[in-house]
């Protein structure tokens, strides 16, 4: 996957400044929050000190990955209807997670998903399976997130050299590790809460601004997007509002679309960082 080219967005010094400000602010919050004396168990569970609302906000933060903000927007911008599936599927997955996973997991008094799963079963194989699944999912998930985060940071900082971009990605990764090591569960829960507020707030503001440009006329906005997409200078000449533009080529790709829809609806219930919050 090629990293971004050297288009410059804004002044890199301002971008670095804002980025550093966010890092300092959130790291500060993490340190303050974990300063309270706590038991070893609190590092892993947050000490049951979070209210239902706060925990809900943290779940939102975990559930809304960078994909929801960046990837889906991009997919819809390029492929229109087929990109819509990503956000719809992920959203409907919430029903599956809520009814089939969250309620039964609630109040079991156990710390981890592996604890809950092996509660009444043969400990060793179940724990091994849980650990393997967590590691595999985390690895794959992190690859995508880090590449996206690093690419974005490289773009904002105006870094063009391939090696420098890799360095930026590595630094972002180290920063994330630092958050977790310093904060433990409590710290990361606060980070997720802040993230949820920022994501939803930021996306709402942008959506409002875009809609404002068309006088809150969604239909008009879609028509304009359509024209831009069909214009070969901007888009890839595909019709945005018609399904199967990306996946309609053959029976195989259609099945691929169906398979994607199943993965999107069943997958999020198994994500370890979402499961651990229940």
């Amino acid at each position: 996957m090629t990293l971004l080219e050297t288009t410059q967005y804004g002044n890199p010094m301002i971008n670095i400044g804002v980025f550093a400000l966010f890092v300092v602010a959130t790291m500060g919050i993490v340190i303050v929050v974990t300063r309270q004396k706590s038991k070893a168990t609190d590092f892993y569970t947050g000490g049951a000190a979070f209210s239902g609302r706060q925990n809900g906000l943290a779940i939102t933060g975990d559930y809304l990955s960078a994909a929801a903000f960046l990837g889906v927007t991009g997919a819809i911008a390029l492929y229109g209807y087929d990109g819509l599936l990503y956000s719809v599927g992920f959203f409907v997955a919430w029903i599956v997670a809520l009814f089939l996973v969250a309620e039964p997991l609630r109040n079991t008094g156990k710390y981890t998903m592996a604890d809950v799963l092996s509660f009444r079963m043969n400990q060793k194989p179940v724990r091994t399976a849980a650990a393997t699944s967590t590691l595999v999912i985390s690895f794959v998930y992190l690859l995508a997130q880090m590449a996206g985060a690093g690419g974005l940071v490289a773009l904002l900082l105006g870094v063009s050299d391939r090696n420098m971009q890799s360095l930026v990605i590595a630094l972002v990764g180290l920063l994330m590790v630092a958050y977790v090591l310093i904060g433990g569960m409590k710290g990361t829960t606060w980070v997720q809460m802040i993230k949820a507020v920022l994501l939803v707030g930021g996306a709402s503001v942008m959506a409002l601004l875009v809609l404002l440009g068309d006088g809150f006329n969604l239909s008009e906005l879609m028509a304009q997007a359509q024209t831009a997409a069909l214009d070969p200078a901007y888009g890839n000449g595909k019709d945005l509002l018609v399904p199967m533009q990306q996946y309609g080529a053959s029976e195989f790709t259609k099945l691929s679309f169906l398979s994607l829809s199943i993965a999107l609806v069943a997958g999020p219930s198994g994500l370890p960082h979402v499961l651990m919050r229940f």
Partner: protein
Amino acid sequence: MSPDRDESQGKPWADETEFHLPEDHWPLPELVHTEKPHEAPTTDSFVAVSKTAEYLNLRSTFRNFAFPMTVAGLVSYFTFVLLSIYAVDFMATPLVGSLSVGMTIGLLQFAVVYAWTFIYVKFATKKLDPVSGALKAQLEKGVQA
């Protein structure tokens, strides 16, 4: 207000995770409670409760709600997906201005999820929480006895 304060009562380093060690490994007496941390209900009491009618009722109430709701939600979603794949022209017909039927149905899925969550919260508060709260109180009272 935090559970740590309540338990340690001015002895901030009391750490219940060391109590499972043999007594000569416990932290210095002046730094610790002399009482052990509060016991949780035993496995036996859990097993006993799991056989009561109340508990089984609670579980079936939940299941009779959750499964149909999940199935309905998924049926709605997969109708959207399958129509998008096989009824392309139908889904492409404009409904409101340039919003196609397909896009509207897709956006309706969001409404379904919101509605389902709202219904669930109402249901849980009214039917599930009182019963599970009573069972929990019963279990904890049994421990203190």
